């Protein structure tokens, strides 16, 4: 005997059947169909399926293109000027002190990149953030796209400047110079990004990154006893640690930014 039989009571069914189905308006249905056909369809979720390689490349390109506005012209010009200035100062100093040739650029490049990254997330940096939060693209992808754009821009600038320096001064060798600034630049950019997500204030994040970098630089070049107790983060031995810190910082920052975007969506 079916246990659910008592749930399908014939008497109740007969009683309820007295309220028959309703006739509907044929014209209203036709109008509805026409209206439905004008509604834009949202992008499909692809749960359980994978986009093919071409679609993935296209999606990545579209996301990056949509995020170009974050790397605004002002920010780009500012970073370009600072990087050029840093390269010029480095070139001048390399003539004065051949033992420390390239050091100025190693000190300047990371903080320029960190400034750029600090301004990619937050209310002031992105007034359309709430609108963005309603987009069908994952917030994690958007944040990573922005980070990739700004960091790549700084990376290209720094590489061009390094090539220029190596070509202009006999005291500067290209690969050691790149190796010297790449790890600190990656680490400081990641920390600036994390701070901008944590504090949601680009200016304070940039200033904190500057303060942190000033401490690292002071430790490296100054002879102050209390700073000598801190580890020197500009040595080749410290580079793996810097990359590890960068990785953790980006992962933590992306996680926090996704939570923040979900909070915005629930508002």
């Amino acid at each position, binding site marked *: 005997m079916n246990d*659910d039989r*008592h749930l399908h009571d014939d008497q*109740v069914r007969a009683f309820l059947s007295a309220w*028959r189905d309703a006739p509907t308006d044929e014209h209203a249905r036709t109008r509805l169909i026409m209206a*439905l056909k004008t509604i834009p*369809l*949202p992008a499909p979720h692809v749960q359980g399926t994978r986009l093919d390689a071409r679609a993935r490349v296209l999606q990545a390109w579209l996301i990056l293109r949509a995020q170009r506005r974050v790397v605004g012209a002002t920010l780009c010009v500012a970073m370009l000027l600072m990087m050029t200035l840093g390269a010029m100062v480095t070139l001048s100093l390399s003539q004065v002190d051949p033992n420390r040739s390239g050091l100025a650029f190693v000190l300047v490049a990371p903080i320029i990149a960190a400034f750029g990254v600090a301004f990619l997330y937050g209310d002031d940096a992105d007034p359309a953030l709430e609108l963005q939060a309603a987009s069908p693209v994952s917030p994690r992808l958007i944040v990573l796209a922005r980070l990739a754009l700004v960091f790549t821009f700084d990376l290209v600038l720094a590489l061009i400047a390094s090539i220029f320096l190596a070509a202009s001064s006999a005291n500067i060798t290209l690969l050691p110079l790149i190796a010297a600034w790449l790890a600190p630049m990656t680490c400081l950019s990641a920390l600036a990004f994390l701070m901008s997500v944590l504090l949601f204030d680009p200016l304070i994040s940039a200033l904190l990154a500057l303060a942190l970098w000033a401490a690292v630089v002071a430790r490296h070049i100054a002879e102050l006893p209390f700073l000598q107790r801190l580890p020197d983060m500009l040595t080749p031995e410290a580079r793996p640690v810097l990359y590890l810190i960068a990785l953790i910082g980006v992962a933590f920052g992306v996680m926090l930014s996704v939570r923040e975007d979900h909070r915005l969506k629930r508002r």
Partner: protein
Amino acid sequence: MIADEVLARRLQTGDRTVIDEIVRRYYDALFGYLLRLTGGRRALADDLLQETWIRMMRGIAQYQYPRPFKSWLYAIATNQMRNHYASAEMRHTDTVDDAILELPFDDHAIDSDLIADEDARQVARALAALPDFQREVIVLVYYSDFSLQDAADSLAIPLGTVKSRLSNGIARLRSMMKATEL
């Protein structure tokens, strides 16, 4: 016949030609469902029906193939009805229970063809006297031909809860039927 789920999948991928067929299959049934949930208020059921279809279009990306499309579509309709009655205005003005119990026999809000006879009117009153959560289950199972499992999926509640709500709802209906006979 092409399965509902396949049509929904095609709509997800941008094929608008399936809209006619999906609407043809469910327009009348959804209207009947909403009409009974709203206590026979045709204008309100019509509004909720339009809104349900629009929500379906806008949310089609959230449909998870191959889960039952019918359950998903009715879940949208149920939510539309709940949202309507949960709005602050409705809380302070009327509820479906009050509306149906207080309606005079010649009220134009009730479709005259549907509830013109006394038997149908009694059914409307009996359904309206049930708590919302029991009325939803009874209308889904008895009028919309949902299995208990499909009703559970559509209402996003456990199967056991559907059974208990249905059982309690039926018991209340039976007692109301007896009272009417007396």
